[in-house]
């Protein structure tokens, strides 16, 4: 009917710029510099480590990058390491999604129902107060030394983080969105999936992304306590016979697992939450 007021259009141009900035790949000199320095720091550290090993500090204490590298190759060649990685991966791959889904579901449910929240909230907070890794031995007792006890620990750690984040999201949710949607005739599962979940999705993703490293911790703690295979078992075994290089190999593999999972979650998050103003927001992993 009429054109947007002039002051509107100025704001809009800045909006357009924001969009352009977001989608266009930015490879500025500054970014290159940042990457160069980062590589320099890592390289310098590795170099220092290599030099220190055997000269200033006993090699069996800190190993060295070159030894770690050879161990890594050897480990994978023998197939041993692959088997351990696979087992740990499996534990996380079962426990993590399970914990996330149940945590989000229950957080949503508690957020919806006032009576449930009133009854169970103190109990859950109390449970959350327990250092959950302390429960790992119990899981071994209940579920044996196979992968299921580790799946249990992973599940436990993941569940609570997702539950609390989703529940917080539900509590912070703006009632007016729900009122508006209902007035517009949206109800039932459509209300849940078109309004409530999108509204709390930033909280859900916070839960998921913070629980990624914890799920790995859960698997490793479980394997430390009692296991016959898995990266945690491999690390403990190697440390027991002073094969320090292998310990570092295990740590590197775990690190890679966390990074890959986080990257995947990050990509999904970016897609799902693309409606959020894309300022440089805090990330867990760079």
């Amino acid at each position, binding site marked *: 009917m009429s054109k947007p*007021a002039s*002051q509107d259009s100025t704001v809009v141009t800045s909006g357009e710029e924001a969009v352009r900035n977001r989608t266009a790949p930015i490879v500025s000199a500054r970014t290159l510099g940042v990457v160069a320095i980062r590589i320099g720091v890592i390289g310098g550290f590795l170099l220092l480590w290599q030099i220190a090993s055997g000269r200033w500090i006993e090699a069996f204490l800190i190993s060295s990058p070159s030894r770690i590298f050879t161990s890594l190759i050897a480990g994978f060649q023998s197939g041993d390491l692959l088997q351990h990685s696979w087992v740990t991966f499996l534990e996380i791959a079962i426990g993590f999604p399970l914990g996330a889904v149940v945590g989000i579901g229950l957080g949503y449910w508690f957020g919806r129902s006032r009576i449930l929240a009133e009854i169970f909230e103190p109990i859950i907070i109390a449970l959350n107060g327990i250092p959950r890794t302390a429960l790992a031995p119990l899981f071994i007792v209940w579920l044996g030394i196979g992968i299921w006890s580790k799946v249990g620990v992973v599940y436990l750690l993941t569940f609570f983080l997702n539950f609390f984040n989703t529940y917080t999201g539900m509590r912070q949710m703006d009632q007016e*969105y729900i*009122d508006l*949607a*209902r007035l517009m005739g949206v109800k039932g599962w459509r209300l849940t999936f078109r309004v409530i979940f*999108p509204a709390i999705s930033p909280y859900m993703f916070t839960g998921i992304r913070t629980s990624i490293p914890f799920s790995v911790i859960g698997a490793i703690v479980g394997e430390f306590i009692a296991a016959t295979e898995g990266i945690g078992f491999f690390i403990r075994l190697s440390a027991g016979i002073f094969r320090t290089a292998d310990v570092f190999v295990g740590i590197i593999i775990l690190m890679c697992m966390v990074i890959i999972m986080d990257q995947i979650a990050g990509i999904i998050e970016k897609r799902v939450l693309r*409606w959020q103003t894309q300022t440089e927001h805090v990330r867990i992993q760079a």
Partner: protein
Amino acid sequence: MLLEFGSGCQLQFAAGVFMTRPFDLGCSIGLNRSRIKIAAKLKDMAQTATFATSKNRSGDRLDIRVETVTKLFRTPSEGTICALEGVSLDIPNGEFITVVGPSGCGKSTLLKLIAGLSAPSSGRIFFQDEEVRGLNTKVGYVPQESKLFPWLTVEANVGFGLSSRRYSREARERQISHFINLAGLAGFEKYYPAQLSGGMSKRASIIRALAYEPAAILMDEPFGPLDAQTRMVLQDELLKIWEQKRQTIIFITHDLVEAVALADRVVVMTHRPGKIRDILQVTMTRPRNIFEIHRQEGFDETYAKLWNIFRHELKIGAR
């Protein structure tokens, strides 16, 4: 009732000018007396009729009827608060009604009750002859802040109310683009609310409520947070859009100029407990020129009246 309808028919017969609008009982009795009297009465009624239409430019029936509604709130700190007390209000179909009153006088509460978002403590509310029990999905609601769904594009926001109703895919798209053009948002369909300016998201918020064609629209200080210029532009646009469809609108504001400029009637509410202090008829003709509303005949007079009442209210509020 019967008598009223009968008289309506007779009238139509006697003087084809009149539509089916039923006239009041007094007139119809007069009609039945004698032919001469009929003629005299007809003249009378002609006046009444034009007056009535200019009054509320209305359709034929009541859209919203608020019947001695009281709303109490229990708060942990102040005990029970009476937000509304004995509020009665009849709003005919197609009327643009504005509600002014000091802050905390229960204006928003009134809207929430009509929308069925909360239930009155006593009294009843009717919407198109049906009592409002539970959610009233026949109304559209424009909240104070825009409250566009931030995870949906402008397009999807405007179409949000359409998806769940019986609109074909085509009709839906037509409706969306029609309203987006109407609000001057063409080209911004794919934008997310976070990328819009205040005025634009306000426009989008209003057409989101209009797009699915609810019978009445409730607006809770929609232009409150905007700057004066944007505000006037939007008031103008709102009136123009409204002139086309003539939905019933209840528009809450704390701006007296806005209240007079937009309305057919202005409802003045008192400080807590919220009661209706007065209802003012705005006699200005339509279409109105928002940008020079002060020059329009009838504005000053209504505004002066309103200010007089309001000044009194403010004193009470300040004490």
